[in-house]
């Protein structure tokens, strides 16, 4: 097995998908000869030709609209949106069209497709290159939303998303693109959607997180362990449809819950996790369900390290929850 960065794992997953299935197409802004602004699609045009991996005009609406039509008609589009912050011109196509096509046609038409897009902070990108918009999409029945946090999962979840019969929004934690390496099997494999991963066992407090917050949670958990608090870290991996049973089990096991994400708190994804627990497992809960999140403000630039949840904040929440 090769030791790859998360970015290389994604590149490898795309390559495998293009090899396995001639109907797979990769496209978006700058994904062709340049290989994508993060180089996620590097060399794919030279390897598979311009018909399989190509640039599009600067229109997210057009990229996703066309992808839906391709998907209806037998292709397997894997569209890149350069930054998740720029997905909003395509919001209508995603929410009104891709997500509802199967339902409104009684299954006559479907849109199996993948939208890959980097999300989150960590590159000093300010308001418009740092956002974590998962909650905007997770409120949309018909869509699947996936967020990997390791190179292994990135490739496996991506390949599962490409094989999936429903439209998948694949959110890539850009902060992790190059910051960690991991073993990645060569060749095709998939990681099941809608099954969470326990990233660390621990009996005192459960931390729910995903994407770039997983390493933050793990570091905080290490620090907590030094203080005698054993933390279970749950990497959700698929946000929609969520492994609700797995979430409830993990919450019940410790009775103390911290929820962690980069996005603003208000109506963020963490609210659903908390509400799910408060609705179905409140009897087990022994402390306030804490959320550690980005602030309810736009994403600042110079001070982004204060905005993004870090070990300091997570550990503080773990301690408070544990001490309650």
């Amino acid at each position: 097995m090769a030791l790859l960065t998360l970015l290389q794992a994604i590149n490898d997953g795309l390559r495998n998908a293009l090899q396995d299935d001639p109907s797979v197409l990769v496209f978006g802004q700058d994904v062709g000869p340049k290989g994508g602004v993060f180089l996620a699609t590097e060399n794919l045009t030279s390897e598979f030709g311009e018909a399989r991996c190509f640039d599009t005009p600067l229109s997210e609406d057009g990229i996703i609209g066309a992808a839906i039509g391709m998907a209806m008609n037998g292709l397997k589009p894997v569209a890149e949106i350069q930054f998740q912050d720029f997905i909003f011109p395509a919001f209508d196509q995603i929410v009104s069209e891709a997500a509802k096509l199967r339902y409104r046609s009684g299954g006559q038409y479907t849109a199996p497709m993948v939208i890959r897009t980097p999300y989150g902070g960590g590159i000093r990108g300010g308001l418009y290159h740092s956002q974590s918009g998962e909650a905007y999409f997770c409120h949309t029945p018909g869509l699947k939303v996936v967020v990997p946090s390791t190179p292994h999962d990135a490739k496996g979840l991506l390949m599962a998303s490409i094989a999936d019969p429903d439209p998948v929004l694949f959110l890539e934690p850009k902060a992790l693109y190059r910051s960690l390496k991991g073993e990645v099997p060569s060749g095709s494999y998939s990681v099941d959607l809608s099954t969470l991963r326990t990233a660390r066992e621990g009996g005192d407090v459960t931390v729910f997180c995903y994407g770039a917050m997983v390493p933050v949670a793990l570091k905080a958990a290490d620090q907590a362990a030094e203080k005698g608090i054993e933390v279970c870290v749950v990497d959700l991996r698929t946000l929609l449809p969520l492994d609700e049973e797995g979430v409830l089990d993990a919450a019940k096991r410790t009775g103390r819950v911290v929820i962690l994400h980069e996005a603003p708190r208000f109506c963020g994804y963490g609210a659903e996790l908390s509400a799910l627990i408060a609705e179905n497992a409140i009897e087990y809960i022994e402390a306030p369900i804490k959320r550690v999140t980005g602030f309810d403000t736009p994403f600042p630039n110079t001070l982004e390290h204060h905005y993004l949840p870090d070990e300091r904040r997570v550990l503080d929440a773990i301690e408070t929850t544990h001490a309650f």
Partner: protein
Amino acid sequence: MASRTPVSIIEPDGTTPGYDHGLSSGELLRIYSSMVLTRAFDDVCIKLQRSGRIGFSIPNKGIEATQVGCASALSPDDWFFPSYRDFGMPLYHGVEPVEMMNNMFGNAQDSARGRQMPVHFSFVDPIRLVSISSPIGTQIPQAVGAARAFQMRGEDHLCLASFGDGGTSSSGFHSALNFAGVWKAPVIFLCQNNGYAISCPTSSQTASESFGIKGEAYGIPGVIVDGNDVFAVRQAVEQAATRARAGLGPTLIECVTFRMGGHSTSDDPSRYVPKELMEYWAGRDPIMIYESVLFREGHLDEARKTQIAAEAEARVDAAAKQAAATDPPSLETIFSDVYEDIPQHIRTQGEAAFDLVARKGGAAGGGGEFPL
């Protein structure tokens, strides 16, 4: 560049100077019957709405030549991305009126399982008529994507994207034409300029001299035709189809026509359409215009005309009766088809709903009037 005056073919006396339709009597009458059937379907739906049997319909009168003329120039292997007003396209290609009526009633036999409002059809057979969406403009880039799939596989088919004058203002129109131009995709953009977007006249929609000219912005040929002249529409679509199948790319066709009724059954056009405009277009009825050819060439006489009208009415009436007598969809249909497989959380919600019905009875049937 697009010609500035709409191309028409049929003269007032029924001659078609310089145009050879090349159609058999049977083919000519198939076009005619489809136009008549379309009007009958429209008529009956409006009556059904007025009498409270269905919630909503979209008047179609006046636009039959555009829709049937277009459909007749395409093959059943082409894909249609239609507008809610395109009754004539499925009817020409042999979709049974009852299948459309099932949608008007939203019953258990509706291909959309009663999930969509009336006039939101979806068919895969005998033609691919892609499930109609309400948001204006969204389906135009989808047609381009589907066309690119044909192109990639080297298939000879094309996609038709049909939309109104209002639709040209949408983001979807812009991205669709732009992508199609760059990709030389086999797609035909049919802009049905029927004078209004609900109550907004074309002058409030755009300052461009026509809709056909908008092709210039995308390197796409634009054609403007008389949308009440079935041959003019047919010819333009045929030419565009030939171009598309030859790999020469997309065409934008503007059909100049008029909506001879309200936007929908909820709309009162007398609030905003000048009477004279209505009168002018009443004199340009597309069925009458086409009849002048058929009479002149001897394919039609009064008796056959009456017979075709009666048959159309009977078919639509029977369809309406059958659809009205069909049960509403079952409660299960709320929860299926969200995903290929029903995820646990939706399954749980469905079970709770069934359980509640078992314990406390069903929900009270809703009222509610549709405003537009």
